[in-house]
């Protein structure tokens, strides 16, 4: 109700934007995100540097940075793109790394389903990991409320803003930093840190280890197919563990 100007149809868009920015939940969303902005920025910087250091042309790196907006997938596919892997392997890799967002979107639905399609699409695109974490902490009750939209966009401003800024800086710096320093290693470590944060659940250790072994063992396969072998191994082993040892009321479990 605070977000709608007194029923004038003419000045719709600008007024709605102004109301969005002025909403107290917008600045709250932004402030909550500032706490982790340094981490996001570092991640963006490393991704930008890794993209150009892996051999991807600068203009492609800039285009990718601005339009793809998915750090993990970008880090994983740039070496594939630089080494000339087939397009479907590149897409399959990105798809697999983004599968977690499919899972997240199940929980987003009750909050966003009432909005128009355009808005749902726009919000979905900007909906990164930390937006999910902070939003679910702020609004644990899965019901739509008018203050959720400004809170969401406040977080996006800081998250996407620091990401893009640092990612472009990384692209600019990447070429001036000698390859033999091995700064691309920072990208690998960023992925490693991300993996550790996902290993909270003990049942994921074994699938992770087996996926790593499978990826190395199947490395000689053409088309980077070792990636798909490793993912299949992780899913199969994880599913078997799940079924052989039913665990009581895990957070992800649903009836």
């Amino acid at each position: 109700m605070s977000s709608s100007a007194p029923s004038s149809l003419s000045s719709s868009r600008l007024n709605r934007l102004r109301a969005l920015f002025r909403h107290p939940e917008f600045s709250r969303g932004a402030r909550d995100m500032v706490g982790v902005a340094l981490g996001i920025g570092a991640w963006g910087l490393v991704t930008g540097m890794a993209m150009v250091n892996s051999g991807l042309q600068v203009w492609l790196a800039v285009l990718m940075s601005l339009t793809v907006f998915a750090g993990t997938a970008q880090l994983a596919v740039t070496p594939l793109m630089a080494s000339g892997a087939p397009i479907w392997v590149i897409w399959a890799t990105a798809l697999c790394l983004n599968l977690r967002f499919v899972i997240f979107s199940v929980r987003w639905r009750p909050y966003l389903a009432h909005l128009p399609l355009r808005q749902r699409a726009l919000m979905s695109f900007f909906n990164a990991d930390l937006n999910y974490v902070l939003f679910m902490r702020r609004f644990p009750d899965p019901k739509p409320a008018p203050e959720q939209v400004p809170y969401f966009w406040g977080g996006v401003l800081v998250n996407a803003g620091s990401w893009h800024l640092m990612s472009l800086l990384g692209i600019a710096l990447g070429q001036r930093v000698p390859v033999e320093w091995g700064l691309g290693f920072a990208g690998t470590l960023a992925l490693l840190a991300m993996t550790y944060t996902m290993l909270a659940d003990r049942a994921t250790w074994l699938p992770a280890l087996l996926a790593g072994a499978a990826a190395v063992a199947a490395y000689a396969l053409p088309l980077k197919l070792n990636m798909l072998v490793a993912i299949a191994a992780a899913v199969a082993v994880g599913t078997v563990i799940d079924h052989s040892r039913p665990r009581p009321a895990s957070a992800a479990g649903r009836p």
Partner: protein
Amino acid sequence: MGAVEGIVTIAGLALITLVTRGFFVLPDRELPLPGWLREGLRFAPIGALVAVIAPELVMSGGALITTWVDARLFGAAAATGWFVWRRDMLGTIVVGTAVMMTLRMALGW
């Protein structure tokens, strides 16, 4: 990678970002989701991540390394130690990279 191929690849990647993030949000009607699929998909992201990392750490020139004198191993170990200690992503990246680069440049590992 050629210009057209690059643009098509990146357009596809951007579409993947949108479709995965909006998978259950974009359709007008609720999509049914079988439980086994929801459970199994849980393991796909970590499988994909580890599949990217493992060869980067323990292989060179397409073969498994046969020596422990490799700066990457110590960098990864330092990063792991930092993460276990502080649970902080930025520090993990900085410490691991610093250790790796120090060993590589000072000792030539």
